[in-house]
């Protein structure tokens, strides 16, 4: 978080009342959304309402012991993030304070209060290589140099979006810290690697474009049936324990984004620890470097102050936009957006605002759309193209999707991954319900899959969808009369559909090999099931009884493809065996 250093307008006010995270102050001269320091300990807060002489502040730290009469200091600047090299491989709280720095400063494993720290290390030096020369004209957003931030990512140093631009009069390569000037313009403007940007304001772009490339997740059910585009939006609603976090972690690990911003919003501490411990050990499937090298973590867990939970999604998306401006594809996961909405509700109710549906503030829907609108595939102001994909988990009370946060989210996002408690209970993972889920990107992404995986990707997928649909219908009958009462061809369809579910849709996130599945393998497993299907129906037509067809010992091997490292050969062999074993029956 910015320290708001450049401000000398320090207008003091006096605390009037304290109620949990909401404090009111008298005589404070501040603007909406300004950062203020509250009480004698200087707790960080943000102005959220101004009425007459009374200013209402949400405080990002615990307020126990704070009393009326203590001072409030204005900083004159809105809640902003520090942008520059040093954000990757970092872990922040909801207002971008680095948690490792806090641990060191506080000298404790517990979060004390009244301690601030800049979001990026101001002293560390970086090797700056110019991309422009003296005499070049530069404008807002233009890339003037690069810094090797991590082995995976070159950080692009850009002219701030609110700059007037001008002619470069001085630039040189060398090692600089983020506050040293690296470029001077003829206007006298000096450009540093460090920028600030207010979190509640979208960073400017030229235009939003229609996304045409999938964000490959390495998860068969997603890539195969419900793909999300680079620059797309997705929601994962589901009751507790249904797999939201595991899915988000899987995306953070395996999605083919350049940068991942993972926002743990009001969820468990141990889940963040898991990421911190696992990611440095895991290899990015695209670059081969440690996954942490492309990751920025924001952890405002459920027991951390609720106001900082409200702001953590904004902190996250602003960082994402900054990397997008460099021309990168960024994926942001927010787990869980419901906790963010609840934080809004909690603050709103302390303000005694008129509640809307289920106590949520009337502006819930507007805030959700503003947030998801910041996703997209963009032409940036410097001419590069970049994207921000947003995947939000939703935690509906009682698992009931009709509640306001789920409903308002579904009105905005284009991909819906519906988690299902029944599937989770029978340990069908990922427990994404294939009948309820959808992706509105499917058609616009098909050309990519045809070109980059297989030309018949759409047809094969359609076959799989039809088979699963038919199974759903047949299951209703089976519930009443039992499987054996069905005609033979329908019994066979049920068997094929079972393999589609077990071999293709199911995927074990905790298995070293199965955890990631490249699109080619996704295609081939689906196609292997189809091979069995086609050969089996031929056998059935030739008069072979269905029990014999389903009894061939090659078939169960379909379920083991997922865990095979050399799946290509395994599938070749398996398809041969299936066909020859069926041929032998007639």
């Amino acid at each position, binding site marked *: 978080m910015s320290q708001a250093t450049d401000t000398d307008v320090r207008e003091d006010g006096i*605390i*009037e*009342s*304290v*109620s*949990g995270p909401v404090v009111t102050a008298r005589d404070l001269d501040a603007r909406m959304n300004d950062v203020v320091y509250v009480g004698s300990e200087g707790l960080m807060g943000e102005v959220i309402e101004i009425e007459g002489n009374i200013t209402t502040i949400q405080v990002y730290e615990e*307020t*126990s*012991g*704070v*009393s*009326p009469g*203590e001072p409030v200091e204005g900083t004159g600047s809105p809640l902003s993030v520090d942008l520059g090299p040093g954000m990757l491989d970092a872990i922040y709280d909801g207002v971008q304070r680095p*948690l*490792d720095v*806090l*641990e060191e400063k*506080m000298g*404790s*494993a*517990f*979060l004390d209060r009244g301690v601030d720290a800049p979001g990026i290390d101001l002293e560390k030096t970086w090797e700056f290589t110019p991309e422009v020369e003296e005499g070049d004209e530069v404008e807002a957003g233009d890339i003037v140099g690069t810094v090797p931030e991590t082995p995976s990512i070159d950080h692009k140093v850009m002219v701030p979006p609110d700059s007037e631009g001008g002619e470069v009069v001085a630039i040189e390569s060398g090692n600089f810290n983020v506050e040293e000037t690296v470029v001077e313009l003829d206007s006298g403007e000096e450009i540093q690697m460090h920028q600030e940007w207010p979190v509640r304001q979208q960073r400017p772009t030229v235009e939003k474009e229609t996304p045409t490339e999938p964000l490959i997740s390495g998860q068969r059910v997603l890539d195969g049936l419900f793909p999300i585009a680079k620059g797309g939006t997705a929601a994962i609603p589901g*009751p*507790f*324990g249904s797999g939201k976090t595991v899915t988000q972690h899987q995306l953070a690990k395996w999605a083919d984004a350049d940068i991942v911003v993972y926002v*743990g919003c*009001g969820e*468990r*501490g*141990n889940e*963040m*620890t898991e990421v*911190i*411990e696992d990611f440095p050990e895991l290899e990015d499937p695209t670059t081969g470097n440690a996954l942490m090298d492309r990751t920025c973590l924001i*952890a405002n*867990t*459920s*027991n951390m102050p*609720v106001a900082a939970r409200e702001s953590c999604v904004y902190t996250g998306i602003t960082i994402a936009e900054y990397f997008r401006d460099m021309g990168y594809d960024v994926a942001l996961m927010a787990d869980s957006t419901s*906790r963010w909405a*609840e934080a809004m*509700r*909690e603050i709103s*109710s302390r303000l005694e605002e008129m509640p809307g549906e*289920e*106590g949520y503030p009337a502006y819930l829907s507007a805030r959700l759309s503003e947030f998801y609108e910041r996703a997209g595939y963009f032409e940036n102001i410097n001419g590069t193209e970049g994207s921000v994909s947003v995947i939000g988990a939703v935690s509906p*009370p*009682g*698992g*009931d999707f009709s509640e306001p946060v789920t409903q308002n989210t579904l009105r905005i996002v284009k991909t819906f991954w519906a988690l299902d408690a029944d599937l989770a*209970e029978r*340990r069908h993972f990922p427990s994404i319900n294939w009948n309820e889920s959808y992706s509105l990107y499917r058609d616009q992404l098909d050309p990519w899959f045809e070109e980059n995986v297989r030309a018949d990707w759409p047809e094969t997928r359609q076959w799989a969808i039809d088979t699963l649909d038919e199974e759903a219908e047949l299951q209703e009958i089976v*519930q009443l*009369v*039992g499987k*054996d009462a069905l005609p033979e061809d329908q019994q066979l369809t049920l068997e094929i559909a079972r393999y589609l579910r*077990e071999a293709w849709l199911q995927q074990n996130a*905790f298995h070293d090999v199965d955890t990631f599945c490249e699109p080619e393998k996704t295609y081939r497993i689906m196609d292997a099931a189809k091979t069995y299907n086609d050969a089996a129906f031929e056998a059935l037509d030739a008069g072979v009884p269905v029990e014999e067809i389903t009894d061939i*010992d090659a078939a169960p091997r379909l379920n*083991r493809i997922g865990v095979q490292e050399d799946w290509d050969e395994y599938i070749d062999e398996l398809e041969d065996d299936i066909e020859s074993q069926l041929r032998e029956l007639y």
Partner: protein
Amino acid sequence: MKEYQTITEISGPLVFVETDEPVGYDDIVEIELSDGETRRGQVLESASDYVAIQVFEGTEGIDRDASVRFLGETMKMPVTEDLLGRVMDGTGQPIDGGPEIVPDERRDIVGEAINPYSREYPEEFIQTGVSAIDGMNTLVRGQKLPIFSASGLPHNDLALQIARQATVPEEEEGDDDEGSEFAVIFGAMGITAEEANEFMDDFERTGALERSVVFMNLADDPAVERTITPRLALTTAEYLAFEKDYHVLVILTDMTNYCEALREIGAAREEVPGRRGYPGYMYTDLAQLYERAGRIEGREGSVTQLPILTMPGDDDTHPIPDLTGYITEGQIYIDRDLNSQGIQPPINVLPSLSRLMDDGIGEGLTRADHADVKDQIFAAYAEGEDLRDLVNIVGREALSELDNKYLDFADRFEEEFVDQGTDTARSIDETLELGWDLLSMLPKDALNRIDEDLIEEHYREDETAETVEAEA
């Protein structure tokens, strides 16, 4: 310290006082009644000229003449290792007639959040001796794993069984464990005197009291007091775990009573209620309790939580179990049907879950075959459960041979694997071997969740032979 006699309003558990000096939010208050009795409370809202106070022991008998003193500090718990073996009431006052407690430190009971960066991921297997937990929903040190129960079910027996039997199997030549002892903290909120006796008798009978600290808020104690009892318990737990290297198991019962108390305070404050009248901040409030479980990098001890809650109307979508499930790392369901069938402990493994299991089991931790065996049992039991509905309609004869085996599997799983009684402690080896006994009822190629090598190693060839013979 200024004393006020300016109470302006008394409403439910709340007292409003006019003040002329600033009072800290959350500060502790003493209210002296005209008959000399003192009650304690806490500042819920502080404005420049008045404060709202929540009175722990209830407002009965308080009048305008009562005098109010603000102690200028937030609620503290005096902590020391000598608390082990002691019994206190729900506000932390000793009720066992023992010596005065000389604190080592006084700690704020609200507790600060553990920095997520400083946590260590929990992955040490705790053997509870209960197969349905160890085999299927493994508990690890530093986890928060609630028991979802309902009225009239034996959740207390299960909690006691776990407290009695829990051990961490020694790692080979394990030397990192020296000095870490096991302690139990028991926080009771609104339980009946009878239930309390059940716990105390068991603690005394087994000698567990020596390594326990007990906080008792009973059903007839003031409801508001319940909001501090778990905080006292957890403050003590953190002290013992992170200062004194104990592995602490915290049993909190009944969280439902705790939540009712929150609702009562919310209603008295005329807050906008959330779902079913519970406060909108209940998720945050519960998280501030449950998230106090865990391990910390560089510290020996750990805090493991086993909260118990009774689901109103056996409904797990009720806000209390629902919000709990969203915060804790899994849950264990106690099942009414299994209980009436006489299965002890009546744990329904299907909806139960331990989210920290995957990292706590496997080679070197439990056994190499553990994960696969668990997955296969879940799949087979779920299949059998499904078929039970169908069999009621079409009869067993209409089902295939394999389906019949699944039905038998489900029955034997409940009768042999789950039903072990409250006094049996099974080692993880015994649990997994039992799992293989049952799985071997099924044909080999139905075991599609188990690695082929493991099947070769463990599958009981004769077992199927037996069933085949029996059928012949």
